[in-house]
């Protein structure tokens, strides 16, 4: 199976409370860039779907990672190559030249060139939380979509059984490839995703795999090609533009209570919520 995985980098999400807003613009100076966590999960899922878990060195498919952005994104792409992805594409552009719709249209052009069987994408990038590119891409390609996948099982690489995490439960779909699948958190659980080659009983370690030092060296030799946005889409206009940003209003400082009795008393007489 050939899988395309779009990647984005984000300002360290575990320190998002340290961002500033300067002159109406979000400023993330001082925060390290990290791969968007959901994209890391998508890479892990793609690797699981293109291997037999008992011998992960032998690749049984191809994983292509693709990023849109400036040269610094090569670091993000090399990181994914080091964990096992086979090759990388960077579409040269800058973040403020993009909106979700244009990202989807660029990815469509990449898909048409590469003809993957599957696009695996993070359900959202945790800066904008827009949760849209997978769905837009599916429509532009005329492919089925399965969003918020908490588990994926391959049926002979012709179709995927996808459990979608939805409000109040799980919605199970079977999609025939090619398709777009967006992944949710639980996809990297031990039973989250499995290829047709991996034994049904196999349990993966929780989370994503890390790159060994040797693999980091080897990843430097894996192919990474640069494409120009203008070669992929004729119309680079944006459908949504962003204006000024602001910080959220601060929450009034609370108090510590000394006992359960005091807590109940406060909830009754002060907060009046009981």
């Amino acid at each position, binding site marked *: 199976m050939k899988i395309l995985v779009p990647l984005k980098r984000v300002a360290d*999400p*575990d*320190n*998002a409370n340290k*961002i500033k807003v300067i002159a109406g613009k*979000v400023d993330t100076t001082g925060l390290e860039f990290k791969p968007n966590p*959901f994209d890391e999960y998508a890479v892990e899922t793609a690797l699981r779907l293109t291997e037999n878990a008992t011998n992960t060195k032998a690749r049984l498919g191809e994983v292509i990672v693709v990023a849109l952005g400036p040269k610094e994104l090569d670091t993000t792409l090399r990181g994914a190559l080091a964990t096992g992805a086979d090759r990388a594409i960077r579409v040269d552009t800058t973040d403020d030249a993009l909106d*979700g*719709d244009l990202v989807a249209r660029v990815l469509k052009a990449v898909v048409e060139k590469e003809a993957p069987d599957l696009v695996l994408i993070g*359900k959202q990038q*945790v800066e*904008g*939380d*827009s*949760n*849209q*590119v997978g*769905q837009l891409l*599916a*429509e*532009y390609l*005329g492919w*089925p*979509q*399965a*969003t918020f996948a908490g588990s994926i099982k391959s049926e002979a690489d012709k179709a995927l059984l996808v459990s*979608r995490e*939805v*409000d*109040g*439960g*799980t*919605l*199970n*779909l079977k*999609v*025939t490839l090619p398709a777009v699948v967006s992944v949710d*958190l639980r996809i990297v*659980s031990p039973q989250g995703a499995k290829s047709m080659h991996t034994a049904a009983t196999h349990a993966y370690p*929780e989370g994503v795999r890390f790159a060994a030092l040797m693999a980091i060296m080897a990843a430097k030799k894996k192919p990474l090609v640069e494409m120009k946005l203008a070669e992929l889409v004729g119309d680079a206009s*944006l*459908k*949504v*533009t*962003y*204006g000024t*940003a602001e*910080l*959220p209003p601060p*929450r*009034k400082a*609370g*108090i*510590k209570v000394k006992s*359960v*009795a005091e807590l*109940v008393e406060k909830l*009754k007489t002060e*907060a009046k*919520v009981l």
Partner: protein
Amino acid sequence: MANTLVIAELHEGKVRKSTLSSITFARQVGGTFSILVLGAGAKAAASEVVVFGAAKVLVADDASLKDYVCERFAPTIAAVAKGGFDTVVVTASSYGKDLAPRVAAKLNAGYAPDISSVHVDGNKRVYRRPMFAGNAYGTCEVQTPVHVVSARQTEFTAAEPSGGASPIESVAVAAPDAASARVEFISLEQGKSERPDLGEARVVVSGGRALKEQFAQVLDPLANLLGAAVGASRAACDAGFAPAELQVGQTGRVVAPALYLAIGISGAIQHLAGMKGSKTIVAINKDGDAPIFQVADYGLVADLFTAVPELVGELKRTVA
């Protein structure tokens, strides 16, 4: 003048209360609006939303819409939208988030996702939305003639009926996307629960990793007593202590109840993003430095395994 199409979400043959948030959005935008109720059983459910002042309640009821498959629902929404609507709104539930971008792409429309408010200034409309896990708010404008919007349920209070009776009209069900031939709906598994939905509950009792296998044993008596919905942190869900659909946070459900109790939850940025809007927040944690105390109105530094049963006892004694 705006003409907005509100997409109702059906659940077990009834219009979900979350739909009322989209109606509030439509009222704020001004002009006129209609409500599209689609799915099997839509005909029967349509009467539930005739009292909100919609120009029309449109119904697409068909066996092909029995189970939710995006590729079957989106074409009908897009076709109806093309009949004179300049805005399509759906509440940002998992249903709305799955559906809205696909509809936007069909309409060649810009999509403003998960917005927290809208500011209308003549012909200009500015959408405000939380970003960076709620640590900043961004504003955006849609540059296309048609706008597709998903509205955050916690930020748009449920619309109250305004009386009258909107006429109900059937609309044609559009041909499904060709891609729908490659999607097979298998099943919808839902936790059966007598409790209110997380998004609608007045009180939410949430538990974290600390609860371990005793998650339900410790929290259920408290939730039952308060008539609360139960929520959980990602760590509790990932570990299997609570089902995934209970996850509250940036990447789970966003809640804003009158009272939120965070029990054995550290208060990671991603968790706070989903509950910071609650009116009153209570935290019970044995670590006095846990970040959850920074947003808690009332913090209790204690072992939850003794504090929660004690709280149940105290509530029974003094409130019930």
